[in-house]
């Protein structure tokens, strides 16, 4: 086995659940995995999901046990499906907020929040903003305890454009990017 020149085996991973395709059936998103595999690798698909290989795997089980397993798998899949749906709904319902905050009369900072729902890494985005606009950009926690990107300078328009294009790239077009303005109230002197 361990002779000279063992080659690395490259294993195919499912594009939907990241498991090797053999294990897709345990992942809960079997229907989608099957679709993907049939599309992307028809040869592997026919090998795994062909009639006789299916028969082989369930050979040793009694009819009752088979039914039970099937029911359980279905339940699991239904669960996963509702979960995915919920997540999508949540995504569609939430929005990115680009806030313009006045610092002094002529100077503003831009605060971007609501990114975490869309799986965007705030730290990385802050870095890209910083180099894109040649300003300072940092990640801080806002009042609600969520991450927020603070960008120095009045670059709201550019940020909005960039975020929209970023979301579109992720296939999430139709997400609202909302602009708001925030002027700190003047402190009344006592």
């Amino acid at each position, binding site marked *: *086995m*361990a*002779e*000279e*020149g*063992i080659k*690395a*085996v*490259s*294993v195919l991973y499912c594009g939907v*659940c*990241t*498991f*090797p395709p*053999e*294990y897709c059936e*345990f*992942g809960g998103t079997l229907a989608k995995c099957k679709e993907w595999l049939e599309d992307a690798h028809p040869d592997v698909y026919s090998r795994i999901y062909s009639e006789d290989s299916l028969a*082989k*795997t369930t050979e*040793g089980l009694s009819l009752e046990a088979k039914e039970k397993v099937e029911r359980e798998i279905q339940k699991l899949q239904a669960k996963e499906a509702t979960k995915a749906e919920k997540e999508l709904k949540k995504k569609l319902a939430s929005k990115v907020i680009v806030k313009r905050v006045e610092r002094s009369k002529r100077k503003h900072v831009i605060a971007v929040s609501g990114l975490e729902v869309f799986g965007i890494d705030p730290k*990385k985005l802050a870095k890209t903003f910083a180099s894109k606009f040649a300003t300072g950009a940092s990640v801080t926690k806002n009042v609600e305890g969520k991450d927020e990107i603070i960008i120095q300078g009045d670059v709201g328009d550019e940020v909005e454009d960039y975020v929209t294009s970023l979301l579109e790239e992720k296939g999430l077009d139709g997400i609202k990017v909302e602009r708001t303005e925030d002027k700190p109230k003047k402190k009344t002197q006592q």
Partner: protein
Amino acid sequence: MFKKFTAKEDIHSRTNVKSSVQRGLKTKLVEQFPKLESVIDDIIPKKGQLIVIKCTDRLSLYTMDNEVLFLQRFDDPFIPSLRLIHKYPNCFPSVKVDRGAIKFILSGANIMCPGLTSKGASLPEEDYPVGTVVAIFAEGKETALAVGKLAMSIGEIKKVNKGIGIEVETHLGDGLWSLELD
């Protein structure tokens, strides 16, 4: 063990490994997994830069090119990552579980002896002692689904046939599997 594992909360620091340390590491790895000897230079090329990521609970992950190769808790033996096992399936000691056990392993359970001794399963001929790191394969599948550490020696598993036989370290779909480094 990797049930809850997120890059943000559990990773403390990442540092480059010195090349001298890297060399020592390679000898240690070959010592632990003699079969790796012929491929160790492919896994960790001489010029490659190994990065060690320190996590909570004294856990270190050895990574290269943003892929976890090995993990190690404190000074315990190295544990190869699943993706590495997929690449070199024959280089590690391995056991095979029956089909019924797959479901439980993938949800994070340790492996009970009956799952290793039943008809669909198979144990190696050699008698590995307690604590040996083994790759876990499954009946009818070609790829490994978990990595674990023997909680009993192979002989004991066969004899006692009760209770936990292998402690699963990492399995398909856990926090380490879905960990994305950049």
